[in-house]
């Protein structure tokens, strides 16, 4: 039996100013009809390059130096642009990572489906409309007729992704490429999209190439998995087998780095002394306008909690639930109502000593480190502000496992993980008692994430620092937090001991979040 999609010995180079860069090296894989192949790897491993090569959509400086890509036995790399355009969308569909940017903001959702039907199935405008409505219903969107006339900004991220999926499936393709289709979505929304994926697969029997950095997710959707690293495929095998018994060293490291909720990384219990208490914190983003005030989302209301000395408190919730607003309120970045107590003393104004005691690390080190400052200058400011000495810079860097000579580097010379370490070092330069970690591992690869967490725990052992750890990753937070608070739509809906998770006493929303979290790979039983 010949494979539906067959990539053989593919090598891809990019010509750059400094010579040529090899993005793919001798890559071979095949997808049978009706099969789903998972393609996993960290950022820069070449997964997206591979997908774009299959779609014949490469940058001008890309050169396919060797190999072949066959679809149903026919060579794709030999097709001219017109023949390729007739294949794309028709025989190969694609679902993109971010539905908010992959839909045209000025066209109705309906138009973005009908244009594909008109192009590839030769339907008239009226027929295409009816067929598009049918497809919207098939991807379980309610009020399909009304949705056809809506614009992307008028619907939710999950609804947009369903429209994108309908667009990919509507011309009856033989294979659909999925490029991290749930990464930009909330945990619960992403889980529903996966259910839809399973349903459509069962109905249409379409083959798939599912690209993701999330091993747990790939294990759920794919029969076979290929692991990529540095432009090569290092291991291929059945998903169930490969993750349970990885043979390649890199795969083993990847599997090990995946957070496992039952493998606790913190085994001590914090003392009973209370460090910070937040009482009825509220933030309103309502815009004041000339004629009337308009209510706006993203605010928080009546949020109360306490963090003990040396405690790790997890704050979980979906995007838009107000998690980051809590962080901004605690650090004085937004004006908030309510009251704060540090060591039982009311914080009336955010004075020097409060700001020193409560530090924050942001999600994106790219935007939180000044690109025009060297690492030395980035660390020097908190040292000067809070009475440290510049001679501590090498120690600070060593403490976050960076070489001392990194002091003279610029942020752009560092990798994502290294930048986040500098940001952590900056927070610790103030000798804080509480560090707020706002999704600090969300933009990092899984292996880098694991080492960053390890670093935070090591620093906590050294300094006894408490953490408010904000994340949407329940598996991760269950490994490290003592207690959890759960937010939804600007309010605290649940607060519980991590040990109580799974006992049935949680808030229904917490349970829904748990159910939506992918099981870690290589583990037979979940929560």
């Amino acid at each position: 039996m010949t494979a539906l999609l067959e990539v053989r010995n593919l090598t891809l180079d990019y010509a750059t100013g400094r010579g040529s860069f090899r993005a793919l090296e001798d890559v071979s894989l095949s997808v049978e009809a009706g099969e789903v192949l998972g393609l996993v790897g960290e950022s820069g491993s070449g997964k997206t390059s591979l997908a774009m090569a299959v779609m014949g959509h490469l940058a001008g400086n890309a050169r396919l130096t060797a190999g072949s890509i066959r679809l149903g036995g026919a060579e794709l790399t030999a097709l001219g642009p017109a023949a390729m355009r007739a294949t794309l969308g028709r025989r190969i569909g694609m679902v993109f990572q971010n539905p908010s940017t992959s839909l045209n903001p000025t066209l109705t959702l309906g138009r973005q489906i009908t244009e594909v039907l008109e192009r590839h199935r030769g339907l008239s405008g009226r027929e295409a409309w009816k067929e598009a409505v049918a497809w919207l219903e098939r991807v379980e969107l309610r009020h399909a007729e009304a949705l056809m006339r809506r614009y992307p900004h008028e619907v939710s991220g999950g609804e947009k992704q369903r429209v994108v999926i309908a667009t990919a499936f509507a011309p009856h393709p033989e294979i659909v490429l999925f490029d991290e289709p749930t990464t930009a979505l909330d945990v619960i929304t992403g889980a529903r999209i996966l259910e839809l994926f399973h349903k459509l697969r069962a109905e249409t029997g379409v083959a798939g190439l599912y690209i993701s950095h999330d091993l747990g997710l790939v294990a759920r959707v794919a029969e076979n998995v290929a692991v990529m690293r540095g432009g090569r495929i290092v291991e291929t095998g059945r998903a169930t087998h490969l993750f349970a018994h990885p043979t390649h060293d890199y795969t083993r490291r990847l599997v090990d780095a995946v957070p496992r909720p039952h493998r606790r990384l913190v085994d001590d219990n914090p003392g009973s002394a209370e460090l910070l208490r937040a009482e009825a914190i509220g933030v309103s983003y309502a815009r004041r306008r000339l004629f009337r005030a308009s209510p706006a989302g993203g605010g928080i209301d009546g949020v109360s909690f306490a963090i003990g000395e040396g405690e790790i408190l997890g704050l979980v919730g979906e995007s838009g639930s107000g998690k980051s607003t809590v962080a901004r309120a605690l650090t004085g970045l937004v004006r908030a109502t309510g009251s704060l107590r540090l060591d039982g003393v009311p914080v009336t104004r955010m004075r020097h000593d409060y700001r020193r005691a409560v530090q924050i690390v942001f999600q994106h080190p790219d935007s939180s480190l000044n690109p025009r400052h060297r690492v030395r200058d980035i660390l020097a400011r908190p040292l000067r502000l809070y009475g440290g000495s510049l001679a501590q810079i090498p120690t600070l860097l060593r403490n976050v496992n960076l070489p001392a000579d990194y002091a003279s580097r610029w942020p752009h010379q560092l990798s994502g993980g290294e930048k986040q370490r500098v940001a952590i070092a900056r927070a610790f330069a103030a000798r804080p008692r509480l560090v707020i970690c706002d999704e600090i591992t969300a933009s990092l690869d899984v292996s880098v994430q694991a080492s960053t967490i390890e670093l935070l725990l090591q620093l906590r052992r050294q300094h006894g620092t408490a953490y408010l750890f904000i994340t949407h990753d329940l598996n991760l937070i269950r490994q490290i937090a003592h207690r959890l608070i759960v937010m939804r739509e600007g309010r605290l809906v649940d607060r519980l001991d991590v040990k109580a998770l799974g006992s049935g006493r949680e808030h229904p929303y917490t349970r829904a979040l748990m159910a939506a979290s992918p099981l870690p790979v290589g583990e037979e039983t979940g929560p």
Partner: protein
Amino acid sequence: MSLTWLSRRLLLMAYTMLVVAVLVFAITQVLPADAAVTLLGQNATPAALLALRQKLGLTDPTWLQFWHWLWSLLHGNFGTSMRTGLPVGPTMFAALSRSLLLAACSILLMLVIAVPLGVLAALRRGSALDVFASLVSYLGISVPEFVTATFVLVVLADRLGWLPATGYVPLSQHFADGVRHLIAPVLTISLVLIAHVARMMRSETIDVLASDYVRAAQLKGLLRRTVLVRHVLRNALLPVVTVVALDVGYLLGGIIVVEEIFAIPGIGRELLIAIQNRDLPSIQAGALIMAGTYAVANLLADIAYALLDPRLRYD
């Protein structure tokens, strides 16, 4: 775009016009011009001057004068020209219509040239066409219009003799001749506009071409033409609408120079004559009408933007 938004926008426009009226009136008050002297000449007797001042209401307190002026404005009466003795309003609006014809032709020519030029330059980045478009843009932006005008005159009218040098012929009177008289000033004005808009169009198109949704459209296997027209062009045009509205402001200023050079009796030229003759009612009316034109142009741009971009909801 809701009705409340529109009515609020109109209210705001009326308010703006009131502020402009106050400013225009205040400025003309401090001008060293005495209407009575202008009318009767330097040799009039003091008694005659006083009598005329009383008759014109010039001895009234300033606020009362302003009130009278505003009241008649609201009734469509802009006053009487002290130079010609004719009502100012009809003269100015006739001049405005000639200027608007000039502006409309220039904007039309600009759109026809600048939009395709910008898009093609973006599609073929680094090509000879792109370099040419950049050159035209830099020239248009850096060379003042009186230089361009002179150049156009010397080449097209003097050397080649294709066009009449100056003057204005109403299209209703003699269409072909009217068009011939419009060509040189329109070319001059549109060069600057083309410069602005082609550059804007180029950079917007480059941004849109790099967007996820254009890549998605290409990967859906759509025809090149469909991707370009349906997905790229519409999104790239959005910011250009704003630029064109801002350019109306430039047009009103730049048009004075161009009208003067080509001897076109438009609003700019009329205003210039009024200032030279210290013809207060004409100055006031001219300034006010120009401000009003600008306000209307901006309103139209806002409406156009709202129609093009569904994400904007004025409410």
